[in-house]
Structures are given as C-alpha cells and as structure tokens.
C-alpha cells in the first residue's frame, strides 16, 4: 500500500507539469534544465499553499530532525526554473477580538443562524493574513453555502436518524434496537471520516492565491471514510501501535488528492520516522500514569498509616501534592505528545512536494505545546467566544513554522478547470469535528 501510493503520485507527478498552460518551448525539459535561483536559505519565510488545514496531523511541515529530503534537481542546479517562495504571516490587521464579540452578539439575536456568516468572515480575515510572495490568500467561500450545506446534512442525515431512532425506540423490539444502534454507530463513524475529508476539500476549493484555486480531486471521500473507520477500529486491538501508520496513510490520501492550480501536491513519506517518536509517547504515557499513581498511592498510604484508627486526614498540603502531581504528569504528557506531533508536522512537510519544491518545518514540541495550552485557555476562558483568536494563532503557527525549499515556476501554474464542490462542510459540522469550528 505504501509503495503503491508512493509510486502513483510519482508517476503522475510529471504529467500535469507538462500540460502547463503556458508552456515554454519544451516545458518538461525546461523545468529540469533551467537553472533556478539559489534555494532560499532554510529558515526563510515558510510557505504552504494549503494553509487551510486544521488538523495537526495533516499539515505538511518541514523537519529539523526528520530524514533529509531527497535530492532535487533544483537543489543542485545552479539555476532552477521558477522563483523561491516566501510564506509569511501578516501581523495585525485581523482585528479578531472585536469581530468575535460582534459575531457573538449577531448569533444570539439570530438564533445562531448567523453562525455560518460569522465563520465565513473570520476565515476571510485569517486567510488574508497568510501571504505568499507578499500577496494574501483569499477565502472565497460564502456564508450561504455553509448554511445550505448544513441544512442539507440536517435534512438527509440528522433528521432521518432522529426520526428512525425515535420510531424504533417506540415500536422496535430489543434486537431491532441493537441492530439499529450498531448500524448507526458504524454509519456515524464512516460519516466522520468522510466529513473530515469533505471539509478539507471544501476549504481548499475555496482558497485562492493570485486568482488561482487550490482544490482536491473529486471523489475519494468514501474510500477515505472507510479507511478512517476500519483503522480506527484497529486502534484498541493494536494497543495504539497502528496510529502512526494510520496518520501517515490518512495524510497520504489527503495530500495526494490536493492540487494548487493545475499541478498536484505529492506526499512521499512513510510511517517509519513517526514510529521513531511514537514509542516515547506510548511508553511515556504508561510511565507517567504509573508514576503519578505510585506517588499519590504512597501519600495516601502514609497518611492512612499515621492516622489509624481515625480516617486519614488530608491537609491542604496533601491536596496540593496530589493536584501538582496530576498537573505535572499531564503537562509532561502534553509536551511529549506535542513533541511527537511537531515531528509529524516537520516530517510530513518535508515529504510534501509541489513540483520540485517541498516544504520544510521548524515546529518544536515546546512551541506546539504552548500553542495548544494557550489556545485552550483562550477558548475556554472566553467560553468559546474568542475561538477565532485561537484559530488565527494556529494558522499563524503554521505560516511562521513552514517554509518552502526549492523554487516554484509560478508563471507556469495555471488555473484548475475542475468544478467547484457544491456542498458546504455540513457533514463535518453535523458531527462537530470541524477543527476550525
């Protein structure tokens, strides 16, 4: 499977480049022989044509310690086709605090109907803060299509489930209820995978830069959904050891379907490097759990022994110890997990190719953990009202920590003729897994 996926994009990769809309005399050879400008110094501004990704696992990201990226013609040729890419985050100008509060008010007075337009305006501002070559990305989605997508999903998924479950509760026998519930769980799990994929496609297809659309190939959501479902079912059976492989394969399916303009993105990674960090998450998690349990257990044991025959009296200090132990254990785990995910971001970035360029990432465990914790606090302390701020900070994190290595011949990136996906993010929304809320 891995090999297959590896070959496919590789084999098909050159095709679209040859069909570039404004070919020079011989486009393919031109790309290879023309000398690119020197590659940008690695920590140059990072660029990601699809910064729309909400999930940490998916964004292609550069690596600081992943395997060195394969050699590219552009890396060695004195002159390569295209230009170096600068990906930057536009400080200021989003003014999201006021907008969030205004949106909250408008949602309240419209029975939450305004939610879809509120989301849209937030996205338009966040997208326009990501700059490629100094020019902003553009979000072209509308509130109306999100709203209609939600209504459609409500009509064809949520309401039927509600009615059928209601009817079956009342009239069905226990076996029928059991069968229905099982079917429902499977269907919902399948729909979750499909929803993630479709939401991603929706957002990409509404992302433009210099008038050129990003998109994802049509189809594929069903197969993604099934893969998502059966691999999820294997997580408990494999005690979690399937996770890195699953993450890689899900990412491969997603990235290999992506295009910017008329050229595809390719994912060339495999799951090996993920396992190099995953063991720490796995064993670290177990150790932390056992360690915390032992510390707290010992404390209680001591107090109990000392207070016999009366029940143990826990002083304030004891409670402080318990709480601190738990918080420290959790923070260490959060850090290990962030370290793992930073590795994923960087590795996936290095394996995500656009023509001869690929991404590079500088994500670190510490910065990612801080992003998680601070975003959680922002959303939590504002009761969700300031979630757009957290959203913008996530986007900024990717924009600041990703860069593009190699040159892209923007003059040969043409418009994609694919049709635009009609439905909104209804599925993802109906199951509330849209990371971008």
């Amino acid at each position, binding site marked *: 499977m891995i090999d297959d996926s590896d070959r496919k994009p590789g084999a098909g990769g050159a095709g679209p480049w040859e069909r570039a*809309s404004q070919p020079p005399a011989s486009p393919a050879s031109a790309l290879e022989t023309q000398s690119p400008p020197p590659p940008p110094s690695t920590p140059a501004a990072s660029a990601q044509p699809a910064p729309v990704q909400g999930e940490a696992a998916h964004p292609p990201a550069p690596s600081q310690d992943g395997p060195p990226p394969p050699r590219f013609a552009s890396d060695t040729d004195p002159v390569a086709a295209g230009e170096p890419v600068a990906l930057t985050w536009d400080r*200021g100008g989003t003014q999201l605090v006021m907008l969030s509060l205004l949106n909250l008010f*408008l949602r309240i007075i419209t029975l939450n109907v305004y*939610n879809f337009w509120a989301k849209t305006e937030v996205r338009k501002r966040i997208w326009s803060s990501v700059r490629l070559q100094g*020019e902003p990305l*553009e979000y072209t989605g509308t509130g109306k299509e999100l709203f209609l997508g939600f209504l459609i999903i*409500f009509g064809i998924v949520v309401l039927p489930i509600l009615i059928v479950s209601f009817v079956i509760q009342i009239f069905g026998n226990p076996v029928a209820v059991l069968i229905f519930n099982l079917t429902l769980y499977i269907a919902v799990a399948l729909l979750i995978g499909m929803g993630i994929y479709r939401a991603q496609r929706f957002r990409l297809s509404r992302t433009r830069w210099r*008038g050129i659309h990003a998109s994802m190939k049509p189809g594929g959501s069903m197969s993604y959904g099934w893969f998502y479902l059966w691999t999820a079912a294997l997580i408990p059976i494999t005690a979690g050891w399937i996770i890195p492989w699953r993450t890689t394969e899900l990412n491969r399916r997603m990235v290999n379907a992506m295009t910017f303009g008329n050229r595809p993105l390719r994912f060339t990674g495999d799951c090996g490097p993920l396992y190099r960090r995953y063991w720490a998450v796995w064993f670290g998690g177990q150790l932390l759990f056992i360690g915390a349990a032992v510390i707290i257990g010992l404390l209680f044991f001591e107090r109990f022994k000392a207070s016999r025959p009366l029940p143990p009296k826990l002083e304030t200090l004891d409670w402080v110890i318990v709480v601190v132990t738990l918080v420290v254990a959790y923070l260490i785990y959060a850090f290990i997990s962030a370290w793992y995910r930073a590795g994923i971001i960087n590795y996936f970035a290095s394996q995500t190719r656009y023509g001869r360029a690929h991404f590079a990432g500088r994500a670190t465990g510490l910065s990612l953990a801080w992003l998680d914790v601070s975003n959680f606090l922002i959303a939590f302390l504002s009761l969700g009202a300031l979630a757009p701020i957290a959203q913008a900070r996530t986007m900024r994190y990717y924009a600041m920590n990703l860069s593009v290595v190699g040159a892209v011949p923007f003059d040969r*990136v043409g418009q994609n003729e694919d049709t635009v996906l009609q439905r909104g993010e209804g599925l993802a*929304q109906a199951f509330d897994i849209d990371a971008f809320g």
Partner: protein
Amino acid sequence: MKSYTARYSDGQTAQSKPVTLRFATQGLEIAGEGLQTLRWPYETLAANVPLTASTPKAIVKQKSDLGVTVFVEDNAAILALREKAPQLAAGRWRRAVVIPAVAFTLLIAGTAVGISYSGLRPAKTMAGFIPQEARVSLGNRVVKSLTRGRPRCSEPDGMAALNRLMNRLNLAAGLERPYEVRVVKWGLVNAFAVPGGTIVLTSGLIRNARNPDSVAGVIAHEIGHGLELHPEAGVIRAFGLSAASELFLAGSSGTLKNAGLILTALSYTRQGEREADAHAARILRKASISTKPLGQFFLDIEKRYGGKKGANRFSLLRSHPENKVRAALFNNQPSYPATPALSADEWKALRTICGKPLTAEQRRARRVARHRETIRRVTEKVTKKTAKWRDYRERAFAYQAQKNYYLALQDFNKAIELRTSDPNLFVARAQLHYRLKAYDKQVDDLTTAIGLKPDSTWFRDRRARANMRLQRWEAALEDHNALLKGEKKPSWRLKNRAETFFHLKRYEDAMRDLDVALAQSKRYLAARGWRSRVFLAQGKPQEALGEAEEAIKIVADSPIGKVLKAQALEALDRRDEALALYRGVVERFKKSRAKFDPTLSLYAWSIVYARNAASAADNR
C-alpha cells in the same frame, strides 16, 4: 485624480504585475505595462473581505469573478473603495444577512407566541395521527420503563373491584375503547396516564386515599388527560424539542436515546391539568360519584407534600402549585345524587389489591425469623473466617433485637476493631451501652463518633442527653452551647439547655432560653412547666403558680401542670389543696410505669413526684 499602486493577476497563471488604480467616474481603472487598461464599474466590484474603515489591504475583483484580481495594500485606497462601491462595506455585508435572520427569529418567536395564544395545539393535532396500535405499544414501553422492578398488583378480589369501578367510569366517559388501570406496588402517591389508554396507579395512592370516591376521581382525572391526548402530545413535543435543539445548536446536543425524554413529556402544563379536571368533573357527575372527596384528596396532598421539593416529577403534585384552587373546583360542583364509587367490601378488596398487609403479629414473627437467619448466616461466616465488619455489625443488631446485649456488644467490638473509622459504628455501640445503663461508656463512644464527624448535630445531641443522664451538667452545657451556636435555635433544644441551666442553678440563663422557646411556640407545655420549676427554685411561688395554671390551660389532662401547681401551692403553705392535686394525679396515672430518672421528661417526673408526695403524706 489620485492613483494607487496595486498588483494585478490575470487568473490564468499564478503571476502578478504592478498596476496603478484610479477611481474614475465610470469605474475603477486598472492600468499597467503591457496591459490594456481595464475599467470596472463600481457596482460590479467585489472584495475578498468585507471592508471596514481600518481594513489595511484587500483583493478587489468583479462579481463575475473569473480569477482576475487586483491586490491593493493601502488604507486610503480601501476608504475610497468603500465610498465609491458601498456594497463592499462590512456593515452592508452583515446587514444583508442579519436583517433576514432576525426577521426569521422574530417569525419563529411570533409563531410560537401566536400558537400558544390562539389555542392551536400542533403537538396535539399531530398526536391525533398516531395509530392506536402505535399508541398502545408506546404506552407499554413507558409503563415498562417507569415501573421497572415494581410488581403489578392483581389480587383477584381487588381486580374485580377495580374492574367494576372502571366499567362505571368508562361508561360515564362514553368511551369506545375502555381505559385500563394497572396498579403497581409503589409507595409513592402517584398516578399517570400513558399513551394508548392505560393509566398507572400506585399502591401508595390507594393506601393514602381516604375513600373510593377520591380514587375514582383520580382515575377520572387521568382519563381526562388521555381523552385530551396529553401523553401522546407530550411525546411529540419531546421529539420536536430534541429536533429543534439539534437544528439550532448545530448538532451539538445528543440524539434522543431513551425513554427519559418521553417521560419528561408526561408532565403536563397547567392548562392541561385544567382540561383533565374538567373531564374528571364531567365523568364523575355522569357516573354519579361525588367530586368532593377528590377535592379533599387534593387538600390532603397539599397538606402532606406541599412545599416539599423533589417530589416525583411525574407525580400528581407536580405543576400543581394551585392544589387548593383545584380542590375548590371540585368542592364547589353543584350537588347531585351520588352513590359511593365502591361498596365497603369492594373498597377493602381494592386496598388489598397488592396483597393483604401483615398483622402486627406476623410482622413480629417475620422480624424474629430474620434475626435468627442473620445470626445463623454470620456465625457460619465467622467459623469460616470470612466475616467482614459489616457481618459483625449485622449480627450485633440481630442480637440486640433479641436482647442478647452482651453478645451484641462483643460483635460491635469486633466490627469496630475491623473498621476503626466509622462514626456510625460507635454510635450504634453507644446506643447499646445505654441499654446496658453504662452511660459513661456511652459518652465515650459518642465522643469518639463526634471526633470522627465533628459537624454531626445528631451525635452531639445524644451526648448532651447522655451527660444529663450522668448529671454531668457542665459537659452537657458545652454540647448544648455548641448545638445552639448557629442561626437556628429550635425551641426544644433551648428547653434542653434551660433544663441544664436549672440543674446548674443558673436560673436567669434558664429563664432566658425558656422565654425564647416560648416566643417561638406559644403552646410549648414543657417550657411552661420548666418556667414554673425555675420560679419555684428562685423562691417565687406566686409566679410558679401562675405558670402552672398556664400549663394546665395548654393541656388540661397532663400531669405536668397539676403537679407543678401542687408544688407551688405547697410552697404557699396550702398543703391540703396540694395533696388533693397529687392524689388526683396518682389516681389518674396509676397505670403509668414511669420511674425516677433525673433527665426523664417532665411528664414522667411529675407522675413520679406526685406518687412520692402522696405516699409521703400517707406515711405521715
């Protein structure tokens, strides 16, 4: 004319080139090298973000949007754009959505208000479309989940009586499909109608009803709910609510997963109650059953549970804060010839539909057997060395019930040895010590229990009384003070402290507590009595006499007032009158087994005192 620099992309390739923008009269002019000057009329313009006054940059395009874009990063240009093409302004963009959405909200709210005022009942209308089989099936489910674990009562005699009553009511209600009543063994006072013409009645309701007419009234009321399709409408409403919450909370609430929601739907609105009451009055009248007992039943309920929170949510009581109003409705019905709903024999049968209650003798025999069984079982465990502290405690209680106090004590000791930190075990042993008259040990155990659970007023109260029994007045006073520290000062606790003060000869303090207690409850006999004793001890026999007279006024037949009066008379040297009073009391209470105990109630004390005084006079 001012011009601005910008970058232009043609939508064909991902390239851009510099251009200049000019705000001409006819439209936005875009001019650049190698580019034929474009002129976009202002009304065709679109932007990537809704423009506010402080927007720093924007991508401008045409509404037809074929990918041709102009990126301008200049707030002055943005301001000019907003002025020339007002459709780009954020305010305009938001209003275009918010105005229809608010209108929609108002429409929904207006519809809801309109429906509730116009008397349209959409849930009820829809309920009418549920086929009968479905209602029955639904009703069975509700009954099953509501009465889980509670047996259905079906003693033949009781069933016969119930059937007769139901025939009478069904006939009076003029029903095509007769209603069915199921009685379940359930202590709660409750009745409810479920979809499909079934009514559930608890045995608790039958037991608490004074007469068959009120049971008939309750059933008629529930038939009224059924006739109005309230149970079915409730189910529809529950479904509608859950669907609406799914819709407006964008899928964040759970789906309808169990009968729980259906059940909440069974609690009706006040209007629903009035409708059911009207039906009940009509049905009862037609069945020639009086409505007044039902009214009385509501009053009884109000008296018993009124103001109590957490009464069962499906109960008759809920959403009926105006039980009195309803009682009035039934009491004020014009009178008509009525016969009892059931004959005396039938009523007796209905009351035992869940099986005859045990006689006192039977209950005692059952208890004895249970204790024996407990002792046998635990003893077996003890031999096998598998007994836990719980087992010892259980056997200790069983021994105690058999009056095997020393065996019980051994078991409590063992239980406490195994479980050192349970205050209730210490209290249980303290109680046993009391039985054994080992009061000081009782106090010790209570002290340990209080150490384990310092905020228990109950434990402290017991220790106070134990200390009084031991005549350790100072210690008792300490507990009383602790108990009376808070805001609440129950009159009986004040009385107890006053009693302690009395024995400590702190008469002023005693008097103060008694005054407060009397202010709280004016007819507090013991407080009057103690005032009399305090006056007497202070050497004020005249006042003591007055208090004794007051006490007699409260309860004429009580020995307290009489004995205290006699004491006062004695102090006033009116010995003959006093002796007559003493003799009267001795004669009146000659069957009393009261014995002397310094902390016995004033009641027992007065009887004992009268006896002693009378016999002392006889001896003289």
